């Protein structure tokens, strides 16, 4: 009898855990819906604006336009890199945080330059014990709606970049592909340039999402900017400096904002998936334990009957 009691206690405890994970799954699902809606809304704008920025960056590499804007030109030597690492505030979301932290650390290792981490989200603090330098920690809200929420981050980063503290700024975030697939990515925010490596290609993917790549831009130029083999140059009104001064920070804001939205959508989907699996695992355990419980109960009854009939037999004899 002792055994069945123990099993039934375990069943109860697992069932109540299951209730909790189920509830968390529902909450994550609701948050995910909101986050996905937000991420899809901004995506067109973010992709188009990134396209424009990269385009300008490419054109500024033409010999004449070299000094078009300080944020567009690449620095000759790389002394210090900043990585904006976007993680979640809470756990219970599977491998979401470890995946993005690993990815960021890997790209840091490959760079072999002094690196400062700028953390957004509580779970990013894991890089402390890994021996990385942390320059700042920002708080992150679970549901991000306003671009203004990220102004402090982008301002401090832009300042440090312009002062020469950093020569390169990367942002590590999780790209939202669909509710069951999220890809950790490291994207270069500053200086704005186009590299062939996949991880710097931005919010790109295939299909519905504008794939911003070198080929894509070349194709775009071919289509819209050349005529009879002659190449058009952009005209800036009133003048390049004024236009780019107001344009580039704004577009960078949007880029970072988009990265945040992607990360949020990914986080909530990762949590939903993790909680869904936990709920399923709990169901499996409950049914398994119920089987054990029934077996134990049956064995107990059988043993009792055997004892009683043995006793009755002994008396009859």
């Amino acid at each position, binding site marked *: 009898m002792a055994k069945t009691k123990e099993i039934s206690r375990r069943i109860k405890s697992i069932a109540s855990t299951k209730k909790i994970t189920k509830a968390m799954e529902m909450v994550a699902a609701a948050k995910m819906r909101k986050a996905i809606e937000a991420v899809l*809304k*901004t995506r*067109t*704008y*973010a992709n*188009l*604006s990134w396209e*424009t920025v990269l*385009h*300008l960056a490419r054109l500024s590499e033409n010999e004449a336009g070299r000094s078009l804007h300080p944020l567009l030109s690449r620095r000759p030597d790389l002394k210090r890199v900043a990585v904006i690492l976007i993680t979640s505030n809470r756990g219970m979301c599977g491998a979401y945080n470890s995946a993005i932290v690993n990815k960021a650390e890997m790209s840091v290792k490959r760079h072999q330059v002094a690196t400062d981490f700028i953390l957004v989200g509580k779970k990013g603090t894991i890089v402390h014990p890994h021996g990385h330098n942390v320059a700042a920690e920002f708080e992150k809200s679970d549901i991000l709606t306003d*671009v203004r929420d990220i102004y402090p981050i982008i301002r401090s980063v832009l300042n440090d970049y312009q002062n020469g503290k950093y020569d390169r700024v990367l942002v590590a975030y999780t790209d939202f592909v669909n509710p069951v697939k999220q890809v950790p990515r490291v994207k270069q925010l500053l200086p704005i340039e186009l590299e062939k490596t996949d991880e710097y290609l931005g919010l790109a993917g295939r299909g519905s999402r504008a794939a911003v790549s070198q080929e894509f831009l070349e194709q*775009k130029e071919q*289509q*819209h*900017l*050349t*005529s009879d083999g002659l190449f*058009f*140059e*952009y*005209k*800036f*009104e*009133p003048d390049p400096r*004024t*236009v780019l001064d*107001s*344009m580039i920070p*704004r*577009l960078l804001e*949007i880029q970072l*904002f988009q990265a945040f939205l992607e990360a949020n959508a990914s986080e909530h989907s990762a949590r939903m998936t993790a909680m869904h699996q936990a709920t399923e695992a709990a169901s499996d355990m409950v049914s398994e334990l119920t089987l054990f419980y029934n077996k134990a109960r049956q064995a107990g009854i059988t043993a009792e009957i055997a004892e009683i009939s043995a006793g009755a037999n002994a008396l009859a004899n």
Partner: protein
Amino acid sequence: MPDKTIQFEIVTPERTVLKEEVLQITVPTTTGEITILPDHIPLVSVLQPGVIEVKRPGNIQEIMSVSGGFIEVMKDKVVILADTAERADELDEERIKAAHQRAEELKKNAKFVDDVQFADVTAKLEKELARFRAVNRWRKLKNTDHKN
């Protein structure tokens, strides 16, 4: 011969407002209002709050209000990255009047707030004004259409 058209796309962080083949586009830039026809020279400029007018084939006109942003013009393609933009036919005149008044009052009463708040209020006011003008323009156009 069919008229030459431009691929026109106007997007805000919230949505794509319009994506069409158009004949000409008039936008308010910080240096004044410009009209873009096909084969315009590639241009990048900053927008200020105001009214965008778009002419589509078949003599259809679209009026939109914009609260600022950027315009990128290529040979046969125009992209507007707007902060906010609405089509005039989506705008409700009465509500805009009320919003405009509210913004005015806010500006009057908000004399002692900090710079950021002041910029916010001013931006709001300009946005409402742009909407207001867009609706007026739209109404005017509709009236002339009826007379014809």
